[in-house]
């Protein structure tokens, strides 16, 4: 029962294989079906793109979604063979690899991989044992977002502690981001801070300013539009979308402490039975022919493909915000031992309880 999808897919594959062998003059490729596991509405399920992809390669793409990274790992674990491509943030790639959930990928097999920004393509977070386990796909930053016009001259995360903004702060309810901001404010590494209590103290000190915690772009948009807060942490790509599509007066700022960078990669589950089709899809995802329409129509994070980013018009807000030099200046979220991740989680839980 659990392998319903791949059984159906397998039948399709066998069936189409048989059809192929008995129909020597078949005009185009037989249909294969692959299943992608990703956040909902995050690029891989863009309808226009998928139609073009199916027409060109005969591969039909189905989707399953997750609402959190632990959920993504659970789904991989409890549905072997159900997924062929999965989106894994580079901070979690090694965790998935050590749980033997994903397979190594040979970047030489992906023609578009040559245009990937080297810092991202070769990011140590995506490697393990000398092999690559994730193809860098899109990146972005978690940084300061303020209400244009009302908040002037913001250039530091210390604004989160500024008494001028009591009750006007919205924080992102995400352990890594919260601890990261605390780390930046105390000049520490976001992935391996040595002084956790100092981070805890800094975060707890924000209590008077904190109005609410948001956990999705939509939540942020609705609350911002309802004038619930003026300063917040926000994602770079989301800031572009909020400004361009929803016309919200938001300013996205990289403060002097720096910002938190993140990189999303596409990986291939070990149990996938359609690795070739999966690789074709991944190659399509890092193709400018996919990225440019996605960015134009829906608004997207920055592509890891430098050529694609260069082809964006200069007036594009995303291009302006996601400057290539940030790739070397930002601290990127990276993998960490489970114990440390747990310590972070405990600290953030404690901070949230202190806010109540």
């Amino acid at each position, binding site marked *: 029962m659990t392998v319903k999808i791949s059984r159906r897919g397998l039948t399709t594959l066998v069936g189409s294989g048989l059809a192929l062998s008995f129909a020597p003059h078949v005009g185009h490729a037989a249909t294969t079906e692959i299943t992608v596991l990703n956040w909902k509405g995050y690029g891989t399920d863009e309808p226009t793109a998928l139609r073009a992809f199916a027409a060109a390669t005969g591969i039909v793409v189905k989707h399953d979604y997750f609402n959190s*990274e632990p959920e993504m*790992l659970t789904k991989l674990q409890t549905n072997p063979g159900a997924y062929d491509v999965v989106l894994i943030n580079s901070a979690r790639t090694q965790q998935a690899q050590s749980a033997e959930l994903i397979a190594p990928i040979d970047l030489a097999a992906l023609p578009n991989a040559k245009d990937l920004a080297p810092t991202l393509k070769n990011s140590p977070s995506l490697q393990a044992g000398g092999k690559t386990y994730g193809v860098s796909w899109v990146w972005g930053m978690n940084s300061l977002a303020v209400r244009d016009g009302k908040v002037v001259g913001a250039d530091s995360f210390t604004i989160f502690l500024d008494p001028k903004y009591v009750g006007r702060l919205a924080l992102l309810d995400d352990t890594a981001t919260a601890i990261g901001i605390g780390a930046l404010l105390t000049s520490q590494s976001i992935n391996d801070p040595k002084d956790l209590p100092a981070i805890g103290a800094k975060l707890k000190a924000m209590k008077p300013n904190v109005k609410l915690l948001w956990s999705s772009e939509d939540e942020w948009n609705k609350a911002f539009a309802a004038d619930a807060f003026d300063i917040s942490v926000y994602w770079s790509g989301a800031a572009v979308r909020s400004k361009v599509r929803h016309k919200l007066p938001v300013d996205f700022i990289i403060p002097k402490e720096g910002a938190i960078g993140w990189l999303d990669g596409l990986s291939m589950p070990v149990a996938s039975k359609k690795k070739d089709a999966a690789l074709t899809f991944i190659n399509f995802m890092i193709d400018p022919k996919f990225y440019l329409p996605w960015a134009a129509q829906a608004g997207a994070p920055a592509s890891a493909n430098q050529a694609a980013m260069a082809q964006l018009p200069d007036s594009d807000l995303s291009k302006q915000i996601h400057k290539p030099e940030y790739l070397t200046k930002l601290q990127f979220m990276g993998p960490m031992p489970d114990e440390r*991740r747990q310590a972070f989680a405990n600290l953030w839980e404690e901070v949230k309880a202190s806010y109540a």
Partner: protein
Amino acid sequence: MALLAPAYLWLTLAVFLPLAVMLFFSFLHAAPFGHRPLILTLEQYRAFLQRPYLLDVAWRSISLALWTTGLCAAIGLPAAVALARATRGRSRQVLFLLIVLPFWTNGLVRIFSWTMVLREGGILDLALHAVLPSAPHFALLYSYPAIVIGLTHAYLPYMILTCYLSVSAIDDALIEAAQSMGARVPVIFAKIVLPLSLPGLMSGAILIFVPVIGCFMEPRILGGRVGVTMGTVIEDQFTQAFNWPLGAALSFIMLAVVLVIFGLTSRAVTTGPTAPLRA
């Protein structure tokens, strides 16, 4: 007994066995995925000792549940009495339907609609300013009362329904007899209606108190930064921390507390002064 078997078999397969698995998880050091060795430990159950802030959170959850159950009882019982005794025929049917219909709206959409009512610049704020333009802003959203309002609203129909079942079965003859002996309304209520509604009140209380202790949607959406409850903490263990053992342990501790509370109140009810009155 054959009557019990189908229901309890179903529960065993669908709930008890899975929960038994979870119970096992709660004694592990880390979620049992990958090829990590299974380390059995009691550390998750020492969570309250290691994380003293959890005591505050637990107390907050319990008081939230008490407030919600109390308000639902205070509002719901009179409503049930009114429904059973002050309305007839067609109007009673209509009112009954009106009370039951909110069940058919999606909980999340309802909670979100409450944000529109309670927030600054929301419906209530606008209404207030239409009447008193110089009044201060009405901003109830992202506060403890907002959570209580949302929860009471969600669970009130349960209480009204269960109380109605008890109240509607009260024999008219009892009330008439009391009235003919000169008893006034408050006395009738205290000596006859209230004791005989106890089954309904108790069931309603269980159906409300128990889920509210573990709720996380209303606190999260209506509470803003004050929306931290056992439910949200447990949810975080599954959605942010990937610490199933801790989440499971906290849930079972919560279950134990609920069972203790239920055990104590159940004894009070079955051995109390009203026991002989009930069939």
